[in-house]
């Protein structure tokens, strides 16, 4: 009898441990909303001017810059990452694939501050001397962010392509198709949702990324809507990190920074749910 009671208690305890994630997520939502909601109003969402010393908190410029940086970086990492994944999955020799794949996977979590530091010390002078501007620019942000998202995209989309059964390839080759025709007509359509999910997840991690971007984009005090890729910009994450250290606790400034956090949270939540729906479609379809 005591044994049954003990078993029951253990199960309850384990359930408690499993619900920690729920508690943390709910607390995060609660505190972000509590701190940020009073700052969310029409001027915040549709104002063009962000100037804390004049109590102007409009985030339009910051949001536009965030997407400008995120989408550009994503475009670069798609153009390089997807072909790399195709190469690794379909063309590369097994040993080469293993070496490259494991080194790419090792770099998935590379500390973003190290990437940012590399950008600051190498990329910025390069851009300043060869292309012009002050060096700290959207271009630098694109390059650093795309390097950061590359390992995610390569690793996830390669997994998706490898998951396509070998019989598909054999069938296609037996019909006289070349390797590339097989890739385009068969592998990519079948791995579509995995590849798409890797892209969406790459996008949301690019938008939520802080330190790497922060160090290379300049962060002007009063942001404007960028009109060249050599402009300095300020994104949502960098604004929060830079200004939270001197915003007075309880002031509209601090609340606006939390409100930026809420907006960021919503964007990222939308993107991850899209990715989840896409991946779910993949899992449901069984070969």
């Amino acid at each position, binding site marked *: 009898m005591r044994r049954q009671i003990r078993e029951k208690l253990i199960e309850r305890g*384990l359930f408690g441990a*499993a619900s920690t994630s729920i508690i943390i997520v709910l*607390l995060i939502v609660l505190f972000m909303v509590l701190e940020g909601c009073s700052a969310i109003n029409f001027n915040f969402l549709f104002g063009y001017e962000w100037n804390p010393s004049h109590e102007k908190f409009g985030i339009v410029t910051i949001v536009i810059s965030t997407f400008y940086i995120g989408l550009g970086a994503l475009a670069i990492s798609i153009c390089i990452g997807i072909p790399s994944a195709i190469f690794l999955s379909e063309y590369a020799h097994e040993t080469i694939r293993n070496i490259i794949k494991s080194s790419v996977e090792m770099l998935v*979590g590379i*500390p973003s*501050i190290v990437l940012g530091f590399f950008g600051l010390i190498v990329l910025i002078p390069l851009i300043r001397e060869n292309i012009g501007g002050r060096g700290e620019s959207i271009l630098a942000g694109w390059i650093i962010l795309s390097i950061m998202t590359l390992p995610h995209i390569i690793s996830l989309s390669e997994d998706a392509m490898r998951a396509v059964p070998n019989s598909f390839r054999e069938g296609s080759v037996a019909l006289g198709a070349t390797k590339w025709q097989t890739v385009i007509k068969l592998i990519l359509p079948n791995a579509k949702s995995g590849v798409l999910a890797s892209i969406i997840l790459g996008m949301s991690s690019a938008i*939520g990324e802080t330190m790497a971007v922060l160090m290379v984009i300049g962060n002007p005090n009063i942001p404007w809507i960028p009109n060249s890729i050599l402009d300095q910009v300020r994104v949502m994450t960098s604004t929060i990190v830079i200004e939270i250290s001197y915003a007075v606790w309880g002031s509209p400034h601090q609340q606006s920074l939390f409100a930026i*956090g809420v907006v*960021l949270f919503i964007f990222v939540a939308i993107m991850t749910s899209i990715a989840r729906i896409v991946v779910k479609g993949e899992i449901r379809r069984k070969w």
Partner: protein
Amino acid sequence: MVTEQKKEKIIKAFLYLTTSISIIALLSIVIYIVINGAYMITPEFLTTAPYKFEMGGIFPQIIGTLLLVGVCMCFAGPMGVLAAIYLTEYAPNNIITKTLRFFVESLAGIPSIIIGLFGLAFLVYYMHFRISLLSGGLALGFMILPWTVRASEEAIRAVPFSYREASLALGASKWQTIKNVSVQAAFPGIITGLLLGLGKAIGETAVVLLTAGSGLESFLPRSVFEPVASLPVYLYMIATQGHTSEAYTRAYGAALVLLMIFLTINIFASIVRNHYVKKHKVRFG
């Protein structure tokens, strides 16, 4: 007209090119940091405290980072493993389990800066832990909890069902089976997962910057309620605010030490995993 063979060749060349670009971009960063940081790695740099902003070494930063991930693991390790045990062994296939999974996934998707803001509002101000080792460690723990849950879950799931059946057939209770069979067999896998979470926590800057301290502290914390220095924040401060050659050489040194800790953890994790996969002939992660 371009024949199919020719097209195939061109495409192959293009794929080679993109793959080399991505590999070179990633490796060149590592190599650049190693080359420029290598001469800074002296016993003096590693064992003294920083002074006057850009002089001295990074001893408190290294220890501080280790303390932070220690606190983080004290929270996320046990919580992650216990949650994973529940999800694999007990959880019925119903709405509650689905909700649990949904929240674990959601926590994984939250950007680190938001975890940092939450740590600042909840741990630092609401719970009055102040800017401290405890706040920083817990906030890091919140961040990597989903990773430890997922990794331990995969490891426990990979244990063949026959192991459990054998144990139950011998008259062991469910908990005894889990404790002595499932978790034992999944142990190397769990360790791998925890190590990968650790690697993620080590390099995290935004969270630590908001909750644990300015990174330049020249002392070690005497209790968990004191601010603590850390390598990523030190690197951030010294790289963005120091403009002298002393500051830059120290930034290279700190970046290299951080990178080395990160790579060591990852390599160690993959050794444990390969060993485990070979031994049990199972696939996971």
